[in-house]
């Protein structure tokens, strides 16, 4: 079998993983910042999955959040894929109280834009956004001069 592209693996070094930032959230937050290369995709999934497991998120809802995070991150990465110097992609996540004793994961995937190239294949992009919308309660893209921020809220799960 062919091994993963070692260049990609080498370049996807992780800059920071922090847990526990305070705020409106009811439990500790997650922050992951990685170089936007394909090898980063699996790391984002692993970090999100571990975070949700620690929060005892229901497995199917956890898998859906992980799938949405992966599509959001891969959307950034595939735009950056042909850039000479890929930028970074950042995941911020926290948990908020929801009505009736429920809770929601609130996630944002951020890139800083300038290194981004032409959009990926529209077919891929379409499937990716379809999966995100089917997996989360809401998905919103915010464009700014500095880049793009994708905001997602999970479906509510019991606290």
């Amino acid at each position, binding site marked *: *079998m*062919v091994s*993963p*592209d070692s260049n*990609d*693996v*080498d370049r*996807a*070094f*992780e*800059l*920071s*993983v922090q847990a526990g930032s305070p705020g409106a959230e009811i439990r500790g937050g997650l922050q992951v910042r990685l170089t936007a290369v*394909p*090898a*980063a*995709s*699996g*790391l984002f*999934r*692993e970090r999100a999955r571990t975070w949700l497991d620690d929060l005892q998120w229901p497995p*199917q809802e956890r*898998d*859906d959040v*992980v*799938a949405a995070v*992966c*599509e959001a991150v*891969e959307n950034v*990465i*595939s735009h950056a894929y042909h850039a000479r110097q890929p930028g970074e992609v950042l995941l911020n996540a926290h948990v908020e109280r929801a009505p009736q004793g429920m809770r929601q994961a609130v996630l944002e995937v951020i890139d800083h834009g300038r290194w981004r190239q032409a959009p990926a*294949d529209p*077919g*891929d*992009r379409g*499937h*990716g956004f*379809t*999966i995100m919308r*089917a*997996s989360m309660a809401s998905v919103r893209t915010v464009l700014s001069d500095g880049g793009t921020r994708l905001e997602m809220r999970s479906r509510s799960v019991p606290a």
Partner: protein
Amino acid sequence: MVEPLEDEPGEESLLGLDTREVPGALILTVTGEIDLLTTPRLRAAVSECLDRADELLVVDLTQVSFLGSHGLAALVGAAQESANGRNKAPLRLVVDGNRPVVRPIQVTGLDEVLALYHSVPEALV
């Protein structure tokens, strides 16, 4: 915090691609995660198998633990290659009830496009 990556994404991103021949068909068993990193290897393996298979190619996805949009696009591309190519074997996908694979296929409506089966024996009939 900088962590060494050598052994980090490896396990998560490993994709297993095993083939075996049975009378009348070639079976490609896929294990692991199909994402942006691993999709090109899956696509290449399926193309190679479509050339190799005489009568039928069965791709077993029941042990795949993640399938993303790039992998979906690759499977659709392979299905089109199978349907439109000259002397290409038919392509059948075994997914059973494997949610990480079935859910992205269903929410994107691609269950209308892909030939899905519950088990390898069912796909071989």
